[in-house]
Protein backbone atom coordinates (compact mmCIF):
# COMPACT_ATOMS: atom_id res chain seq x y z
CA UNK A 1 0.00 0.00 0.00
CA UNK A 2 1.86 3.11 -1.17
CA UNK A 3 0.27 6.21 0.32
CA UNK A 4 2.07 9.54 0.40
CA UNK A 5 -0.83 11.98 0.81
CA UNK A 6 -1.45 12.08 4.50
CA UNK A 7 -0.89 14.30 7.50
CA UNK A 8 2.42 13.68 9.21
CA UNK A 9 4.34 15.13 12.13
CA UNK A 10 7.13 17.47 11.01
CA UNK A 11 9.87 19.05 13.06
CA UNK A 12 11.57 22.37 12.41
CA UNK A 13 14.91 22.10 14.17
CA UNK A 14 15.47 25.86 14.11
CA UNK A 15 12.50 26.28 16.43
CA UNK A 16 13.09 23.24 18.63
CA UNK A 17 14.12 24.36 22.13
CA UNK A 18 15.25 20.93 23.23
CA UNK A 19 12.82 21.09 26.17
CA UNK A 20 11.74 17.40 25.87
CA UNK A 21 8.10 18.33 26.60
CA UNK A 22 7.05 16.35 23.51
CA UNK A 23 8.50 13.21 25.09
CA UNK A 24 6.45 13.67 28.26
CA UNK A 25 3.28 14.57 26.39
CA UNK A 26 3.73 11.51 24.17
CA UNK A 27 4.31 9.14 27.09
CA UNK A 28 1.28 10.57 28.90
CA UNK A 29 -1.01 10.43 25.85
CA UNK A 30 -0.15 6.76 25.33
CA UNK A 31 -0.31 5.79 28.99
CA UNK A 32 -4.09 5.50 29.12
CA UNK A 33 -3.98 7.28 32.49
CA UNK A 34 -6.17 10.33 33.26
CA UNK A 35 -3.51 12.26 35.15
CA UNK A 36 0.01 13.12 34.01
CA UNK A 37 1.57 12.90 37.47
CA UNK A 38 0.04 9.46 38.06
CA UNK A 39 1.18 8.33 34.63
CA UNK A 40 4.77 9.57 34.70
CA UNK A 41 5.99 10.62 38.14
CA UNK A 42 8.99 8.61 39.27
CA UNK A 43 8.85 6.37 36.21
CA UNK A 44 11.19 5.73 33.33
CA UNK A 45 9.28 7.00 30.31
CA UNK A 46 9.14 5.30 26.92
CA UNK A 47 8.04 8.06 24.55
CA UNK A 48 7.52 7.43 20.85
CA UNK A 49 9.20 10.70 19.97
CA UNK A 50 12.76 11.40 21.09
CA UNK A 51 14.69 14.66 21.22
CA UNK A 52 18.22 14.34 19.93
CA UNK A 53 20.74 17.05 20.58
CA UNK A 54 24.34 17.77 19.84
CA UNK A 55 25.76 21.15 20.77
CA UNK A 56 23.61 23.76 19.06
CA UNK A 57 21.34 21.32 17.24
CA UNK A 58 18.17 19.93 18.77
CA UNK A 59 15.35 18.20 16.97
CA UNK A 60 12.77 15.52 17.64
CA UNK A 61 12.63 12.14 15.90
CA UNK A 62 9.55 10.00 15.43
CA UNK A 63 8.17 7.58 12.82
CA UNK A 64 8.16 9.15 9.34
CA UNK A 65 5.33 6.91 8.08
CA UNK A 66 7.51 6.26 5.02
CA UNK A 67 5.86 5.88 1.62
CA UNK A 68 7.69 2.55 1.21
CA UNK A 69 8.42 1.42 4.77
CA UNK A 70 11.21 -1.11 5.21
CA UNK A 71 9.97 -2.05 8.71
CA UNK A 72 6.78 -3.45 7.17
CA UNK A 73 8.75 -5.58 4.70
CA UNK A 74 11.20 -6.78 7.34
CA UNK A 75 8.94 -7.67 10.26
CA UNK A 76 9.39 -11.41 10.87
CA UNK A 77 6.03 -11.60 12.66
CA UNK A 78 3.94 -9.85 10.02
CA UNK A 79 3.05 -7.42 12.80
CA UNK A 80 3.67 -4.11 11.02
CA UNK A 81 1.42 -2.79 8.30
CA UNK A 82 0.90 0.38 6.32
CA UNK A 83 -2.83 0.88 6.20
CA UNK A 84 -5.08 2.57 3.64
CA UNK A 85 -4.81 5.87 5.56
CA UNK A 86 -1.01 5.75 5.19
CA UNK A 87 -0.37 5.16 8.89
CA UNK A 88 2.26 2.54 9.71
CA UNK A 89 0.97 0.54 12.66
CA UNK A 90 2.42 -2.18 14.89
CA UNK A 91 0.11 -4.98 16.02
CA UNK A 92 1.52 -5.40 19.52
CA UNK A 93 -0.31 -8.71 19.95
CA UNK A 94 1.64 -10.20 17.04
CA UNK A 95 5.00 -8.60 17.90
CA UNK A 96 7.48 -10.99 19.55
CA UNK A 97 10.12 -8.34 20.30
CA UNK A 98 12.76 -9.61 17.85
CA UNK A 99 13.74 -5.99 17.07
CA UNK A 100 14.26 -6.53 13.34
CA UNK A 101 12.39 -3.22 12.91
CA UNK A 102 15.07 -1.52 15.03
CA UNK A 103 17.72 -3.10 12.81
CA UNK A 104 16.18 -1.70 9.62
CA UNK A 105 14.48 1.62 10.49
CA UNK A 106 16.74 4.18 8.77
CA UNK A 107 15.62 6.90 11.21
CA UNK A 108 15.99 5.12 14.54
CA UNK A 109 12.29 5.70 15.19
CA UNK A 110 11.23 2.30 16.55
CA UNK A 111 12.06 1.11 20.07
CA UNK A 112 10.72 -1.32 22.65
CA UNK A 113 8.24 -0.31 25.36
CA UNK A 114 8.72 -1.23 29.02
CA UNK A 115 7.64 -4.81 28.23
CA UNK A 116 9.98 -5.37 25.29
CA UNK A 117 7.18 -5.00 22.74
CA UNK A 118 7.94 -2.66 19.87
CA UNK A 119 6.27 0.72 19.66
CA UNK A 120 6.52 3.88 17.61
CA UNK A 121 4.52 6.98 16.78
CA UNK A 122 1.07 6.17 15.42
CA UNK A 123 0.01 9.83 15.35
CA UNK A 124 -2.14 9.57 18.50
CA UNK A 125 -4.95 8.14 16.37
CA UNK A 126 -5.59 5.26 18.76
CA UNK A 127 -5.45 7.12 22.04
CA UNK A 128 -7.77 9.74 23.50
CA UNK A 129 -5.59 12.71 22.56
CA UNK A 130 -7.31 13.23 19.22
CA UNK A 131 -4.29 14.87 17.60
CA UNK A 132 -0.57 14.20 18.10
CA UNK A 133 0.18 15.16 21.72
CA UNK A 134 3.72 16.25 20.82
CA UNK A 135 2.31 18.83 18.40
CA UNK A 136 -0.40 20.03 20.77
CA UNK A 137 2.05 20.62 23.59
CA UNK A 138 5.06 22.03 21.72
CA UNK A 139 5.63 25.48 23.31
CA UNK A 140 7.45 26.91 20.30
CA UNK A 141 5.38 25.28 17.57
CA UNK A 142 8.48 23.51 16.33
CA UNK A 143 6.43 20.36 15.76
CA UNK A 144 3.49 20.54 13.35
CA UNK A 145 0.92 18.08 12.01
CA UNK A 146 0.10 18.74 8.38
CA UNK A 147 0.14 17.41 4.82
CA UNK A 148 3.31 18.06 2.82
CA UNK A 149 5.14 16.63 -0.15
Amino acid sequence: MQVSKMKRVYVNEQWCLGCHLCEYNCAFANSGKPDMAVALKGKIIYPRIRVEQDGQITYAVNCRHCTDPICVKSCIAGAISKDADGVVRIDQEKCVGCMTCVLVCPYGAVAPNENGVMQKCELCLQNSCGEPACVKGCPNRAIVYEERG
Partner: protein
Amino acid sequence: MEQYVIIGNGVAAVSCIEGIRSVDTESPITVLAAEPHPTYCRPLISYYLEGKTTVERMVYRKKSFYEENHVTVRYGVTAHKIEIHTHEVFLEDGESVPYTKLCIAAGSSPFVPPMKGLEKVEKQFRFQTLDDALALEQALTPDAKVLIVGAGLIGLKCAEGIHGRVASITVCDLAPRILSSIFDDLCAARMQAHLEQHGISFLLNDTVTEFKGQTAVMKSGAKVDFDILVAAVGVRANIGLVKAAGGNCNRGIVVDARCATSMPDVYAAGDCTEGYDLTIGANRVLALLPNANMQGYCAGQNMAGKAAAFDKGIPMNSIGFFGLHAMTAGTYFSEQEGGVCYEECDDKHIKRIYTKDDHMTGFLLIGDVEKAGIYTAMIRNRTPLYSVTYDALQKDPSFASFSAEKRGQIFGGVV
Protein backbone atom coordinates in the same frame (compact mmCIF):
# COMPACT_ATOMS: atom_id res chain seq x y z
CA MET B 1 -4.38 -11.92 -19.44
CA GLU B 2 -1.49 -13.57 -17.61
CA GLN B 3 -1.58 -16.86 -15.77
CA TYR B 4 0.67 -16.58 -12.73
CA VAL B 5 1.94 -19.61 -10.86
CA ILE B 6 3.97 -19.47 -7.66
CA ILE B 7 5.78 -22.52 -6.32
CA GLY B 8 5.93 -22.19 -2.54
CA ASN B 9 3.78 -20.40 -0.01
CA GLY B 10 6.18 -18.65 2.31
CA VAL B 11 6.92 -14.97 2.79
CA ALA B 12 8.42 -14.56 -0.69
CA ALA B 13 5.24 -15.99 -2.22
CA VAL B 14 3.01 -13.61 -0.27
CA SER B 15 5.00 -10.56 -1.29
CA CYS B 16 5.13 -11.86 -4.87
CA ILE B 17 1.32 -11.87 -4.81
CA GLU B 18 1.35 -8.32 -3.41
CA GLY B 19 3.82 -7.26 -6.10
CA ILE B 20 1.69 -8.75 -8.88
CA ARG B 21 -1.50 -7.20 -7.52
CA SER B 22 0.11 -3.75 -7.27
CA VAL B 23 0.19 -3.87 -11.09
CA ASP B 24 -2.30 -6.47 -12.31
CA THR B 25 -5.52 -6.89 -10.32
CA GLU B 26 -7.20 -9.24 -12.81
CA SER B 27 -5.14 -12.20 -13.95
CA PRO B 28 -5.43 -15.45 -11.97
CA ILE B 29 -2.70 -16.48 -9.51
CA THR B 30 -2.19 -20.08 -8.43
CA VAL B 31 0.00 -20.99 -5.46
CA LEU B 32 1.39 -24.49 -5.13
CA ALA B 33 1.89 -24.96 -1.39
CA ALA B 34 3.67 -28.05 -0.09
CA GLU B 35 2.76 -27.32 3.53
CA PRO B 36 -0.88 -27.59 4.65
CA HIS B 37 -0.89 -24.15 6.33
CA PRO B 38 -1.61 -20.60 5.18
CA THR B 39 1.62 -18.57 5.16
CA TYR B 40 3.03 -18.36 8.68
CA CYS B 41 6.11 -16.70 10.10
CA ARG B 42 8.76 -19.40 10.06
CA PRO B 43 11.23 -17.56 12.32
CA LEU B 44 8.53 -17.55 15.01
CA ILE B 45 8.51 -21.29 15.65
CA SER B 46 10.95 -20.90 18.55
CA TYR B 47 8.85 -18.05 19.99
CA TYR B 48 5.87 -20.39 19.76
CA LEU B 49 7.62 -23.02 21.89
CA GLU B 50 8.65 -20.28 24.29
CA GLY B 51 5.00 -19.25 24.66
CA LYS B 52 5.49 -15.79 23.16
CA THR B 53 3.05 -16.36 20.30
CA THR B 54 0.36 -18.82 19.23
CA VAL B 55 -0.28 -20.72 16.01
CA GLU B 56 -3.19 -18.34 15.30
CA ARG B 57 -1.09 -15.19 15.78
CA MET B 58 1.82 -16.58 13.75
CA VAL B 59 0.03 -16.19 10.44
CA TYR B 60 1.82 -13.75 8.12
CA ARG B 61 -1.31 -12.16 6.66
CA LYS B 62 -4.92 -12.00 7.75
CA LYS B 63 -7.24 -14.87 6.87
CA SER B 64 -8.91 -13.09 3.96
CA PHE B 65 -5.59 -12.42 2.17
CA TYR B 66 -5.88 -15.03 -0.57
CA GLU B 67 -9.54 -14.34 -1.22
CA GLU B 68 -9.06 -10.57 -1.38
CA ASN B 69 -6.22 -11.06 -3.84
CA HIS B 70 -8.07 -13.65 -5.96
CA VAL B 71 -5.46 -16.31 -5.32
CA THR B 72 -6.07 -20.04 -5.60
CA VAL B 73 -3.94 -21.91 -3.09
CA ARG B 74 -3.45 -25.62 -3.64
CA TYR B 75 -2.34 -27.00 -0.28
CA GLY B 76 -0.29 -30.18 0.02
CA VAL B 77 0.77 -30.00 -3.62
CA THR B 78 4.41 -30.41 -4.66
CA ALA B 79 5.84 -29.28 -7.99
CA HIS B 80 7.78 -32.08 -9.61
CA LYS B 81 9.10 -30.66 -12.86
CA ILE B 82 9.18 -27.42 -14.85
CA GLU B 83 8.86 -27.59 -18.64
CA ILE B 84 10.07 -24.19 -19.84
CA HIS B 85 9.30 -24.73 -23.55
CA THR B 86 5.64 -25.44 -23.02
CA HIS B 87 5.34 -23.21 -19.90
CA GLU B 88 4.03 -25.95 -17.65
CA VAL B 89 4.66 -27.10 -14.10
CA PHE B 90 4.08 -30.81 -13.57
CA LEU B 91 2.89 -32.05 -10.20
CA GLU B 92 3.90 -35.37 -8.68
CA ASP B 93 0.82 -37.14 -10.04
CA GLY B 94 1.53 -35.90 -13.56
CA GLU B 95 -1.03 -33.10 -13.59
CA SER B 96 0.04 -30.10 -15.65
CA VAL B 97 -0.31 -26.55 -14.33
CA PRO B 98 0.20 -24.08 -17.18
CA TYR B 99 1.74 -20.65 -16.58
CA THR B 100 2.66 -17.54 -18.49
CA LYS B 101 4.84 -16.22 -15.64
CA LEU B 102 6.30 -18.45 -12.94
CA CYS B 103 7.87 -17.60 -9.59
CA ILE B 104 9.92 -20.15 -7.68
CA ALA B 105 9.68 -19.41 -3.98
CA ALA B 106 10.53 -22.92 -2.86
CA GLY B 107 12.61 -22.01 0.19
CA SER B 108 15.26 -24.23 1.69
CA SER B 109 15.47 -27.61 3.38
CA PRO B 110 17.36 -28.79 6.44
CA PHE B 111 20.68 -30.34 5.61
CA VAL B 112 21.64 -33.27 7.83
CA PRO B 113 25.08 -34.74 7.19
CA PRO B 114 25.41 -38.50 7.42
CA MET B 115 26.02 -39.57 11.03
CA LYS B 116 26.52 -43.21 11.96
CA GLY B 117 23.55 -44.65 13.84
CA LEU B 118 21.35 -41.58 13.21
CA GLU B 119 18.62 -43.64 11.60
CA LYS B 120 18.19 -45.60 14.83
CA VAL B 121 17.63 -42.50 16.97
CA GLU B 122 13.95 -42.62 17.79
CA LYS B 123 13.18 -39.10 18.98
CA GLN B 124 14.91 -36.96 16.39
CA PHE B 125 13.63 -33.71 14.94
CA ARG B 126 14.42 -30.97 12.47
CA PHE B 127 13.60 -27.37 13.35
CA GLN B 128 12.46 -25.48 10.29
CA THR B 129 8.71 -25.75 9.83
CA LEU B 130 5.68 -25.27 12.05
CA ASP B 131 5.05 -29.01 11.87
CA ASP B 132 8.65 -29.62 13.03
CA ALA B 133 8.01 -27.40 16.06
CA LEU B 134 4.67 -29.05 16.85
CA ALA B 135 6.24 -32.51 16.62
CA LEU B 136 9.13 -31.48 18.87
CA GLU B 137 6.69 -29.98 21.37
CA GLN B 138 4.90 -33.33 21.64
CA ALA B 139 8.15 -34.97 22.73
CA LEU B 140 9.14 -32.38 25.35
CA THR B 141 9.04 -33.55 28.97
CA PRO B 142 10.41 -31.87 32.12
CA ASP B 143 13.01 -34.61 32.60
CA ALA B 144 14.18 -34.82 28.97
CA LYS B 145 17.82 -34.31 28.04
CA VAL B 146 18.13 -32.59 24.67
CA LEU B 147 21.07 -32.64 22.28
CA ILE B 148 21.04 -30.02 19.53
CA VAL B 149 23.49 -30.56 16.67
CA GLY B 150 24.29 -27.11 15.28
CA ALA B 151 25.03 -23.85 17.14
CA GLY B 152 23.71 -21.60 14.40
CA LEU B 153 20.64 -19.36 14.43
CA ILE B 154 18.21 -22.27 14.15
CA GLY B 155 19.85 -24.48 16.78
CA LEU B 156 20.23 -21.72 19.35
CA LYS B 157 16.74 -20.26 18.88
CA CYS B 158 15.46 -23.81 19.34
CA ALA B 159 17.45 -24.05 22.57
CA GLU B 160 15.92 -20.82 23.86
CA GLY B 161 12.44 -21.92 22.80
CA ILE B 162 12.50 -25.21 24.72
CA HIS B 163 14.49 -23.89 27.71
CA GLY B 164 12.41 -24.36 30.85
CA ARG B 165 10.42 -27.18 29.29
CA VAL B 166 13.20 -29.80 29.47
CA ALA B 167 15.84 -30.91 32.01
CA SER B 168 19.00 -30.05 30.07
CA ILE B 169 20.18 -28.76 26.71
CA THR B 170 23.56 -29.48 25.12
CA VAL B 171 24.52 -27.86 21.82
CA CYS B 172 27.41 -29.13 19.71
CA ASP B 173 28.97 -27.70 16.58
CA LEU B 174 31.91 -28.48 14.35
CA ALA B 175 32.79 -24.77 14.29
CA PRO B 176 34.96 -23.37 17.08
CA ARG B 177 32.37 -20.69 17.98
CA ILE B 178 28.62 -20.28 18.14
CA LEU B 179 26.69 -18.41 15.41
CA SER B 180 29.80 -18.76 13.27
CA SER B 181 28.16 -17.37 10.12
CA ILE B 182 27.35 -13.98 11.68
CA PHE B 183 29.56 -13.56 14.76
CA ASP B 184 33.29 -13.08 15.22
CA ASP B 185 35.18 -14.72 18.10
CA LEU B 186 34.66 -11.83 20.52
CA CYS B 187 30.88 -11.60 20.07
CA ALA B 188 30.45 -15.37 19.97
CA ALA B 189 32.30 -15.80 23.27
CA ARG B 190 30.15 -13.11 24.92
CA MET B 191 26.88 -14.65 23.77
CA GLN B 192 28.06 -18.16 24.61
CA ALA B 193 28.85 -17.10 28.18
CA HIS B 194 25.37 -15.56 28.41
CA LEU B 195 23.72 -18.75 27.17
CA GLU B 196 25.82 -20.85 29.57
CA GLN B 197 24.61 -18.67 32.45
CA HIS B 198 21.13 -19.84 31.50
CA GLY B 199 22.16 -23.46 31.73
CA ILE B 200 22.87 -24.30 28.08
CA SER B 201 25.99 -26.49 27.65
CA PHE B 202 28.25 -26.37 24.61
CA LEU B 203 30.59 -28.77 22.86
CA LEU B 204 32.32 -26.75 20.16
CA ASN B 205 35.01 -27.82 17.74
CA ASP B 206 33.37 -31.19 18.09
CA THR B 207 31.10 -33.44 16.11
CA VAL B 208 29.09 -36.61 16.55
CA THR B 209 30.94 -39.63 15.20
CA GLU B 210 28.28 -42.15 16.15
CA PHE B 211 24.96 -42.53 17.87
CA LYS B 212 24.79 -45.58 20.13
CA GLY B 213 21.19 -45.75 21.21
CA GLN B 214 20.59 -42.61 23.28
CA THR B 215 24.25 -41.72 23.56
CA ALA B 216 26.17 -39.54 21.14
CA VAL B 217 29.84 -40.41 20.88
CA MET B 218 31.76 -37.28 20.02
CA LYS B 219 34.96 -36.94 18.03
CA SER B 220 36.66 -35.56 21.16
CA GLY B 221 35.79 -38.77 22.97
CA ALA B 222 33.05 -37.15 25.03
CA LYS B 223 29.78 -39.02 25.42
CA VAL B 224 26.48 -37.19 25.58
CA ASP B 225 23.37 -38.97 26.82
CA PHE B 226 20.15 -37.58 25.40
CA ASP B 227 16.45 -38.34 25.09
CA ILE B 228 15.69 -35.92 22.26
CA LEU B 229 17.89 -35.04 19.30
CA VAL B 230 17.43 -31.89 17.19
CA ALA B 231 19.44 -31.77 13.96
CA ALA B 232 19.99 -28.10 13.10
CA VAL B 233 23.23 -28.25 11.17
CA GLY B 234 22.13 -26.00 8.35
CA VAL B 235 19.84 -25.50 5.40
CA ARG B 236 20.26 -25.78 1.66
CA ALA B 237 18.42 -23.81 -0.97
CA ASN B 238 15.83 -25.85 -2.88
CA ILE B 239 17.33 -25.56 -6.35
CA GLY B 240 16.37 -28.98 -7.72
CA LEU B 241 13.46 -27.92 -9.96
CA VAL B 242 15.42 -25.16 -11.67
CA LYS B 243 18.60 -27.19 -11.99
CA ALA B 244 16.71 -30.06 -13.63
CA ALA B 245 15.12 -27.61 -16.06
CA GLY B 246 18.56 -26.33 -17.06
CA GLY B 247 18.46 -23.03 -15.16
CA ASN B 248 21.55 -21.38 -13.75
CA CYS B 249 22.19 -22.41 -10.13
CA ASN B 250 25.10 -22.25 -7.74
CA ARG B 251 24.30 -22.71 -4.08
CA GLY B 252 20.99 -21.06 -4.82
CA ILE B 253 18.99 -20.26 -7.93
CA VAL B 254 20.89 -17.40 -9.56
CA VAL B 255 18.70 -14.33 -10.00
CA ASP B 256 19.42 -10.87 -11.38
CA ALA B 257 18.32 -7.56 -9.88
CA ARG B 258 14.85 -8.13 -11.37
CA CYS B 259 14.68 -11.48 -9.58
CA ALA B 260 14.60 -13.17 -12.98
CA THR B 261 16.28 -16.57 -13.38
CA SER B 262 18.25 -17.58 -16.47
CA MET B 263 15.06 -19.17 -17.88
CA PRO B 264 12.43 -17.21 -19.83
CA ASP B 265 9.38 -16.08 -17.82
CA VAL B 266 10.71 -17.77 -14.69
CA TYR B 267 11.48 -15.68 -11.60
CA ALA B 268 12.66 -16.71 -8.16
CA ALA B 269 12.62 -15.18 -4.70
CA GLY B 270 13.49 -15.96 -1.11
CA ASP B 271 15.66 -18.59 0.53
CA CYS B 272 16.00 -20.68 -2.64
CA THR B 273 17.86 -17.90 -4.45
CA GLU B 274 21.33 -16.51 -4.68
CA GLY B 275 21.02 -12.75 -5.08
CA TYR B 276 23.31 -9.75 -5.11
CA ASP B 277 24.96 -8.74 -1.83
CA LEU B 278 26.08 -5.15 -2.27
CA THR B 279 28.62 -5.39 0.56
CA ILE B 280 30.71 -7.90 -1.40
CA GLY B 281 29.60 -6.89 -4.89
CA ALA B 282 28.71 -10.47 -5.76
CA ASN B 283 25.92 -13.00 -5.47
CA ARG B 284 25.38 -15.10 -2.38
CA VAL B 285 22.55 -16.89 -0.63
CA LEU B 286 20.90 -14.38 1.72
CA ALA B 287 18.29 -16.55 3.39
CA LEU B 288 16.61 -13.83 5.45
CA LEU B 289 12.96 -12.97 5.82
CA PRO B 290 13.30 -9.26 4.90
CA ASN B 291 15.15 -10.13 1.71
CA ALA B 292 12.55 -12.78 0.85
CA ASN B 293 9.84 -10.16 1.19
CA MET B 294 11.64 -7.58 -0.95
CA GLN B 295 12.66 -10.09 -3.61
CA GLY B 296 9.15 -11.50 -3.81
CA TYR B 297 7.63 -8.06 -4.35
CA CYS B 298 10.22 -7.23 -6.99
CA ALA B 299 9.63 -10.54 -8.79
CA GLY B 300 5.87 -10.00 -8.69
CA GLN B 301 6.05 -6.53 -10.19
CA ASN B 302 8.33 -7.69 -12.99
CA MET B 303 6.09 -10.67 -13.68
CA ALA B 304 3.18 -8.25 -14.07
CA GLY B 305 5.13 -6.06 -16.47
CA LYS B 306 6.34 -3.24 -14.25
CA ALA B 307 10.11 -2.77 -14.20
CA ALA B 308 11.38 -3.20 -10.63
CA ALA B 309 14.79 -3.90 -9.13
CA PHE B 310 15.99 -5.26 -5.82
CA ASP B 311 19.65 -4.39 -5.60
CA LYS B 312 20.02 -3.58 -1.91
CA GLY B 313 20.37 -7.04 -0.42
CA ILE B 314 22.75 -7.37 2.50
CA PRO B 315 23.16 -9.98 5.22
CA MET B 316 21.48 -8.71 8.42
CA ASN B 317 20.26 -10.33 11.59
CA SER B 318 18.56 -9.21 14.76
CA ILE B 319 18.74 -11.95 17.32
CA GLY B 320 18.37 -12.09 21.08
CA PHE B 321 18.70 -14.81 23.70
CA PHE B 322 17.35 -14.55 27.26
CA GLY B 323 17.20 -10.77 27.15
CA LEU B 324 20.62 -10.11 25.58
CA HIS B 325 20.20 -8.72 22.09
CA ALA B 326 22.59 -8.78 19.14
CA MET B 327 22.46 -7.24 15.70
CA THR B 328 24.76 -7.87 12.77
CA ALA B 329 24.83 -6.59 9.22
CA GLY B 330 26.97 -6.62 6.11
CA THR B 331 30.53 -7.84 5.72
CA TYR B 332 33.47 -7.47 8.11
CA PHE B 333 36.57 -6.86 6.02
CA SER B 334 39.88 -7.62 7.72
CA GLU B 335 42.83 -5.20 7.76
CA GLN B 336 44.47 -7.27 5.01
CA GLU B 337 41.36 -6.74 2.89
CA GLY B 338 41.45 -3.00 3.48
CA GLY B 339 38.88 -2.94 6.27
CA VAL B 340 38.99 -0.68 9.32
CA CYS B 341 37.31 -1.68 12.58
CA TYR B 342 35.98 0.74 15.19
CA GLU B 343 35.47 -1.01 18.51
CA GLU B 344 33.83 -0.37 21.87
CA CYS B 345 33.77 -3.16 24.39
CA ASP B 346 32.73 -3.22 28.04
CA ASP B 347 30.92 -5.56 30.44
CA LYS B 348 27.52 -4.92 28.92
CA HIS B 349 28.09 -3.97 25.30
CA ILE B 350 30.14 -4.77 22.25
CA LYS B 351 30.17 -2.58 19.17
CA ARG B 352 32.28 -3.26 16.10
CA ILE B 353 31.77 -1.18 12.99
CA TYR B 354 33.63 -2.02 9.82
CA THR B 355 34.45 0.49 7.11
CA LYS B 356 36.27 0.20 3.82
CA ASP B 357 36.96 2.70 1.04
CA ASP B 358 35.04 5.47 2.83
CA HIS B 359 31.90 3.35 3.31
CA MET B 360 30.43 1.39 6.17
CA THR B 361 30.36 -2.30 5.17
CA GLY B 362 29.23 -4.08 8.31
CA PHE B 363 28.68 -4.05 12.05
CA LEU B 364 28.23 -6.26 15.09
CA LEU B 365 26.38 -5.03 18.16
CA ILE B 366 25.68 -6.82 21.42
CA GLY B 367 23.73 -5.21 24.24
CA ASP B 368 23.03 -1.66 23.11
CA VAL B 369 21.23 -1.96 19.79
CA GLU B 370 19.23 1.26 19.92
CA LYS B 371 18.83 3.02 16.55
CA ALA B 372 21.02 0.42 14.81
CA GLY B 373 18.94 0.97 11.67
CA ILE B 374 20.79 4.23 11.06
CA TYR B 375 23.96 2.14 10.57
CA THR B 376 22.12 -0.44 8.46
CA ALA B 377 20.88 2.34 6.17
CA MET B 378 24.45 3.67 5.86
CA ILE B 379 25.43 0.25 4.46
CA ARG B 380 22.35 -0.27 2.27
CA ASN B 381 22.47 3.23 0.81
CA ARG B 382 26.27 3.18 0.39
CA THR B 383 26.37 6.56 2.16
CA PRO B 384 29.92 7.96 1.83
CA LEU B 385 31.54 8.59 5.20
CA TYR B 386 32.70 12.04 4.07
CA SER B 387 29.06 13.15 3.95
CA VAL B 388 28.62 12.61 7.71
CA THR B 389 30.57 13.39 10.89
CA TYR B 390 31.76 9.83 11.17
CA ASP B 391 33.77 10.24 14.39
CA ALA B 392 30.55 11.12 16.20
CA LEU B 393 28.33 8.72 14.26
CA GLN B 394 30.39 5.65 15.09
CA LYS B 395 29.92 6.43 18.79
CA ASP B 396 26.23 7.31 18.57
CA PRO B 397 23.84 6.55 15.69
CA SER B 398 22.14 9.94 15.38
CA PHE B 399 21.14 12.37 12.68
CA ALA B 400 23.11 15.06 14.51
CA SER B 401 26.04 13.63 12.51
CA PHE B 402 24.30 14.30 9.19
CA SER B 403 23.98 17.65 7.41
CA ALA B 404 21.20 20.09 8.32
CA GLU B 405 19.94 19.69 4.76
CA LYS B 406 19.62 15.92 5.19
CA ARG B 407 17.79 16.35 8.49
CA GLY B 408 15.46 18.84 6.82
CA GLN B 409 14.62 16.32 4.07
CA ILE B 410 13.88 13.55 6.56
CA PHE B 411 12.12 15.33 9.41
CA GLY B 412 10.56 18.12 7.36
CA GLY B 413 9.63 16.19 4.23
CA VAL B 414 8.06 12.99 2.94
CA VAL B 415 10.40 10.02 2.82
